[in-house]
């Protein structure tokens, strides 16, 4: 029992360290929020200042904006950690190395939710979208999608960080793997916004990815982190 308590205390320390590190790098996430808002503005201009979009289009644009905003942030976070020696420091933590991933995932998902919420809020206002028909479903779908995407982004950014051309390679590694998650998130938010479609199968897709993200890093994150 005491061992389990000690283990949780160590994991909480990892989460605290990661959160402090992300909070200190505030330029990165403030720039991310600004870029997200700008992205929505550009999308609105590109659509000729449209008054109202069909729900499926609006949700597609929303997730595209979220992805475009978060991809550079995940990469910058991982690259920053590697360059400043934070990753090497974390390797000294007396825990299985996969827990470094889980700690990073928790913290980055939190920051990603904040950034994505800014993008969603702006797109509601700028693209004149009415409030969703099922607000609770909308919030659940949105947060679940961002959490699963953050897990994938965190894991693959660790792999891409050691690449010479990480900025070019990372989106190419992430987007094909994340496509089912993006599709599921779009369909779930379309359902929440306009009661259109069948959400059950898409919840299952998100759940499957969530389970994979809980299991695979336990097997694969240690080799990914090796120096």
């Amino acid at each position, binding site marked *: 029992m005491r061992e389990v308590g000690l283990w949780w205390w160590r994991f909480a320390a990892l989460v605290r360290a990661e959160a402090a590190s992300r909070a200190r790098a505030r330029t990165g996430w403030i720039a991310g929020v600004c870029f997200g808002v700008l992205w929505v503005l550009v999308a609105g201009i590109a659509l000729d200042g449209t008054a109202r979009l069909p729900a499926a289009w609006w949700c597609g644009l929303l997730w595209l904006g979220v992805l475009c905003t978060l991809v550079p942030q995940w990469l910058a976070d991982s690259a920053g950690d590697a360059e400043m020696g934070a990753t090497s420091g974390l390797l000294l933590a007396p825990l299985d190395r996969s827990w470094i991933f889980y700690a990073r995932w928790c913290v980055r998902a939190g920051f990603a939710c904040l950034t994505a919420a800014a993008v969603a809020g702006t797109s509601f206002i700028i693209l004149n979208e009415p409030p969703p028909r099922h607000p609770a479903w909308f919030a659940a779908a949105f947060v679940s999608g961002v959490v699963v995407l953050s897990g994938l982004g965190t894991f693959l950014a660790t792999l891409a960080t050691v690449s010479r051309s990480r900025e070019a390679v990372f989106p190419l590694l992430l987007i094909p793997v994340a496509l089912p998650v993006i599709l599921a998130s779009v369909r779930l938010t379309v359902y929440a916004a306009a009661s259109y479609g069948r959400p059950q199968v898409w919840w299952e897709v998100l759940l499957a990815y969530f389970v994979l993200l809980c299991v695979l890093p336990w097997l*694969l994150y240690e080799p990914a982190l090796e120096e």
Partner: protein
Amino acid sequence: MEKHRADARRRPRVGWFLAAAGALAAVVWADLYLALIASPPEENMGDLVRIMYFHVPCAWVALFAFFVSFIAAGMYLWRRNTGWDSLAVSSAEIGLCFTTLALITGALWARPVWGAWWTWDPRLTTTLILWFLYAGYFLLRGSLDGRERRARVSAVYGVIAFLDVPVVHMSVTWWRSIHPAVVSSQGIHMPPGMADALWMGLCTWMAVYALLLTVRYRMERQRERVERLVARVRAQTS
């Protein structure tokens, strides 16, 4: 003297390779005969169906090649033997070539039959995603420094990329697809003359895959030896 001995050691391997390549050429000719001449035209598509004898085996061999790559990547992560990494990259490379062929032959077939080069069919879409996953695998691999790091990081990504393969296979069952399921638990859904040509095509392309894999694997091992020698010479001269 040493050079002559090395040449003598190599000769049987070259002979074996030439014999295998000759036998394979004969099998390819037999396959072409079956696919283009002997097999009957289809009732609705006519002679267009003959693309299937290349398209379907290419797709199956590609999935098999990715499976081999996945197993080899897993074995590398477990045993850390560079031979497994060479096998993983060789098989993935051939798999990517076969996927490209499957996509091209599929588009050529789809245009006259479905009226479009591309449709948002689940199998087509998941196969294109698979192509991008393995294109990403090679770009990642090409941008990593250090033999051990390159092998380790690309093995991890190779395991993740393979997750799309079962999705490609099951896509016609899970989603509504206009792609016909050629083989199911009830057996093969085509007349015997066409089925024979299809099986022959599969065996032929599998043999082509085996030969290419052997050659590519040996090339990869030679490249590693050269890299090691260069590193040793540099270390001695510096």
